[in-house]
């Protein structure tokens, strides 16, 4: 995918999420949190090298093939970021960012489930989902 398009997409998602968590309805706030965490997941995936490579699924056919250098730990030649050095062929995309995103998705699933149930219980106690009406504790 085009890099610029991806950045604009992430930025838009962040904007939408920020707008939604400033709403007064609790459910909209939860939706905003979800959108924000998806924007973050996209951001994490975009930090790894991903152009042109295959998904990092290693089958037995790949056992002998070169592993595809994504990141060489060579401080002396100034290579730091997970970029592809000149002249190496990239076989697999960076698997680490995908693992990070999977973890982040699982965590945001748990948080979202918790938040939705919390909203339901608050609705039962207060009879409304408007944040400004349930405000009893004063900062």
């Amino acid at each position: 995918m085009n890099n610029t398009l991806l950045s604009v997409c992430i930025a838009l998602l962040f904007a939408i999420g920020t707008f939604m968590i400033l709403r007064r309805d609790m459910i909209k706030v939860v939706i905003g949190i979800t959108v924000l965490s998806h924007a973050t997941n996209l951001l994490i995936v975009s930090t790894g090298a991903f152009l042109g490579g295959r998904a990092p699924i290693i089958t037995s056919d790949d056992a002998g093939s070169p592993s595809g250098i994504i990141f060489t730990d060579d401080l002396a030649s100034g290579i730091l970021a997970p970029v592809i050095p000149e002249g190496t062929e990239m076989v697999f995309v960076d698997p680490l960012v995908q693992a990070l995103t999977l973890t982040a998705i699982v965590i945001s699933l748990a948080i979202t489930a918790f938040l939705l149930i919390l909203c339901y219980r608050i609705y039962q106690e207060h009879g409304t989902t408007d944040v400004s009406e349930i405000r009893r504790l004063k900062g």
Partner: protein
Amino acid sequence: MDTMQQVPMILIALPIIFAAITVLFRSKSGLQKALNIGVFAILFVMSLSLLFHVWNNGILVYEVGEWGKYGILLVADLLGAGMVVLSSLISLMAMIYATDYMDRKALDATFFPLFNLMAAGLNGIFLTGDIFNMFVFFEVLVLSSCGLIVLTGRGDHTKMADKLEAIFKYLILNMVSIILMLVAIASLYATVGTLNMADIAVKIAYLAETGTLPWHIHVIAMMLIVVFGYKAALFPLHFWLADVHPSAPAPIHAMLSGMVIKVGVYGILRVHYLIFQESMFMLQPVLILLSLVTIAVGATSAVGQYDLKRLLAYSSVSQIGYVLLGVGMGTAYALTAAMVYLVNHAIAKSMLFLATGETLYHAGTKDIRKMGGFVQSAPFLSVIFLIGAMSIAGLPPTGGFFAKLVLFDAGLGAEYYIPIGIALVFAIFTLFYLFRTWLSIFWGEVKEHDKEDTYKSRNPTIAIKISLALLACVVIFLGVYPEPLIVLSSTIAEQLLDPQPYIAAVLERSVR
């Protein structure tokens, strides 16, 4: 030696296993109580042995799963092991206290599994050597503490509607801060291509040496200050604390105010002093300014409170400002002072909160104006509360005296005269509101005479007395014999300012 190697992992895995076991054997709360007190006692002993091991043999690095270079590392250095000892001590005492304090229904339902998960989260944060794992353990900690806030205890006069509202606030704000942390981690990964904190530190030092440090490293450092500042309730981000902490039952309140807000301080000490040493020159003035405002806002808000738990919660805000003042000043002596202050505040504040829970149960209300003269009906609680208040206010012979003394001495030594002056003024505020509170609760007239018989029937049980007395002994011990703590803290401060041993230990271990 070989068994000592495994201790960092066991400290995290054992509470998780017992969380599972306590889910499977719910509704046998008699068995559960004995089992869990046993587990937390084992954890405390193991964390102490880990601290002694690290003190004698140097930093201990543990590779989870032996995945080689990019594996998950647990690093137990003096700071991490020391924090684990502190958290194990407080969670052991809170657990002993909670067995008698919490409602039977809460004990049968979710108290034990969630408390175990909370302990696992705390130990994980203090022992991990990987910044993404720190995020994962933050989430474990936050979700389990949200579940614990809902539970009820016998001295807990908060309505369920208020608890739910507080949790909603806590969780939404926490989610925003966690998303900021993830963005910071992603940017850090895009810049240096690793998540191991020692490795990041090496690479950022290399970038700074060659003069190619990208400017967004400073932005990442500031984002992480916001994240950890939220956890530690630093000034513009402190407002949730006074709602959330008082809603929790007393043992959880003690854990939240004693340990969970210290997690933010630990994060700043670990991440910023290890990784972002290049940006500290611009962050230190900000930290000092914000911590002074935190001290002022917390102390002045506490003076006007009549709700006992809210008063002490604002006092926590104010006290965490003192710790961050030491962190912000950043000299070796000031970091020593910050560590001493952190330990003393954690122990004294959790003791004060445990005593508060029992006082509220004794009084049957949480309004200070309706209490009075409890020194006759609850002499034990009055002594414990007095020791806690003296330690927080900084009077000898308690540990709080040395904490304040070392902090002010360090500030004057580093020529921060105006910040120390301001901090001193608000220390007098602390003295004022704590002793006004103690006098109005335990001294003076008994407000409602007809209730005196009910007061007599609501006295602490043996388990509660044991936990309070042990914590009081620790507070007095730290005040009478503070040398071990100060020596340990100054070694930690030296290691923080010179992270080379930490980096060497991690890198030597992980390159295979």
